[in-house]
């Protein structure tokens, strides 16, 4: 079958909603429209019942108690609620927080805001494979440290941090541990009964659910407290007010139920596709893989094609929907801060491609992607003065470039 264009290889940005999820959501928009907070009639009762059932599905995927799941509008809100909520609640114990330079902006910008509120934040470096060195974390924890936040799976490079070990260290040192797991659900096994994690942010739309819904895990034993950031009707045990969007919740619940049931077989299939993509592309000269290849979810492959600028590559491979760490794909003109944190040079960061695959990716799509990328890399290198210099044996790092 000829794949239809463009081929979607940007599952890290968002995933399509699984048709089974759409099916489950629809009745809750029109026929069963009740407010789950309405206690006085059947519309409310049935909505409340499905909300609690969905909460159970979300809890089951991460091995949590349903009472530990708080609905939010998405992982960005969950990160804000967790970090601001915990920092404000525990501020009498200390005012120091720790995170990592490769975190998502939803964590980094929240930390910046906490700095404006008078907290002090340490941003840890990572090793060149993208993983956190536990000794670096251990050295950074101080008596006044109240919160550590480390993401489970990195959104750009897909590396999996050692959450169990980091959590154990935080527990021992009496620090609240928050994990942004937006990119982890359905990709890695998460068992909150075992993992020493206090707060965990969850997203729906990275796991085949709808956008606009997420959740925050707040541990009950030992009990973790947060200050609400959204005030109103006292929904979600006062931690997050606002009328619950029943259909969205049903969607996230169904998506997580499917992920729980299918992630074993799905991960194997996606790993096979990732290996096929990797094998196809790693033969290209001057290609570098960004992030550890072993401690990585199979859904992600991030590569730099040296001497080819990422945006021009994306323009050439217009049959493929991928993303780049190149400055030019953002308005900021700064290349990916995640790749910079790995110690990658600016030029390799500019030359990177993030390919993320998922449930609906096929072998044919991978083969087309490999052909298209190889063809365009070769074409753009013919156009590249840097490639010409490299081929002439000139080391471009020895040249004095004028910055502009």
């Amino acid at each position: 079958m000829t794949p239809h264009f463009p081929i979607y290889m940007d599952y890290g940005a968002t995933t399509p909603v699984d048709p089974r999820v759409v099916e489950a959501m629809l009745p809750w928009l029109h026929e069963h429209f009740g407010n789950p907070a309405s206690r006085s009639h059947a519309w409310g009762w049935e909505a409340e019942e499905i909300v609690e059932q969905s909460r159970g599905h979300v809890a089951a995927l991460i091995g949590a108690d349903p009472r530990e799941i708080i609905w939010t509008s998405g992982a960005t809100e969950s990160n804000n609620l967790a970090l601001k909520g915990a920092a404000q609640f525990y501020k009498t114990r200390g005012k120091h927080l720790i995170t990592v330079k490769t975190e998502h902006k939803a964590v980094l910008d929240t930390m910046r805001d906490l700095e404006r509120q008078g907290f002090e934040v340490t941003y840890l470096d990572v090793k060149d494979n993208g993983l956190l060195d536990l000794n670096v974390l251990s050295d950074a924890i101080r008596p006044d440290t109240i919160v550590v936040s480390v993401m489970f799976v990195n959104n750009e490079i897909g590396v999996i941090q050692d959450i169990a070990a980091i959590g154990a260290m935080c527990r021992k040192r009496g620090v609240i541990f928050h994990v942004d797991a937006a990119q982890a659900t359905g990709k890695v096994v998460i068992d909150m009964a075992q993992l020493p994690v206090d707060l965990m942010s969850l997203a729906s739309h990275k796991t085949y659910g709808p956008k606009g819904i997420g959740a925050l895990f707040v541990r009950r034993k030992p009990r973790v407290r947060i200050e609400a950031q959204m005030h109103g009707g006292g929904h979600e045990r006062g931690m997050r007010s606002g009328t619950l969007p029943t259909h969205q919740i049903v969607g996230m619940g169904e998506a997580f139920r499917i992920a729980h049931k299918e992630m074993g077989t799905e991960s194997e299939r996606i790993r096979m596709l990732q290996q096929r993509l990797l094998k196809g592309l790693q033969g290209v000269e001057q290609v570098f893989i960004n992030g550890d290849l072993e401690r990585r979810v199979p859904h992600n492959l991030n590569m730099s094609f040296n001497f080819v600028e990422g945006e021009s590559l994306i323009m050439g491979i217009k049959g493929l929907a991928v993303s780049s760490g190149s400055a030019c794909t953002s308005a900021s003109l700064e290349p990916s801060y995640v790749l910079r944190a790995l110690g990658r040079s600016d030029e390799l960061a500019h030359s990177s491609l993030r390919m993320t695959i998922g449930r609906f990716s096929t072998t044919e799509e991978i083969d087309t992607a490999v052909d298209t990328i190889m063809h365009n890399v070769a074409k753009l290198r013919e156009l590249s003065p840097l490639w010409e210099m490299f081929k002439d044996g000139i080391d471009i790092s020895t040249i004095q470039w004028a910055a502009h």
Partner: protein
Amino acid sequence: MAYSAKVIEHYENPRNVGSFDKSDTSIGTGMVGAPACGDVMKLQIKVNPQTGLIEDAKFKTYGCGSAIASSSLVTEWVKGKTPDQALSIKNSKIAEELALPPVKIHCSILAEDAIKAAVSDYKARNADAARH
């Protein structure tokens, strides 16, 4: 980001890609930008010693589609001009011709700089040649 039809056309069919022998006195070479910034343009002009006109030009560019299109466009525009006339090509004209969005204006500035660098290289080398 949506590209203008002209940017896409130059990107798909870049004009005058390649390199001249740098050591030839009829050639002026300009290389501007920096890999760390995501753009490097190399523009070369070939000046006919009899007529004093730029009779050919070639480029190679590492950069986004707009940078490639800007440099491809200037290889067409410099031809038939004297080096001094080529200096009159302004970035605003390049940006206008390619309908570059504000965030890509730096690509047209770089292309203008590449012309200046190539012309000054040509003049410097020919001033040397005249002295010998």
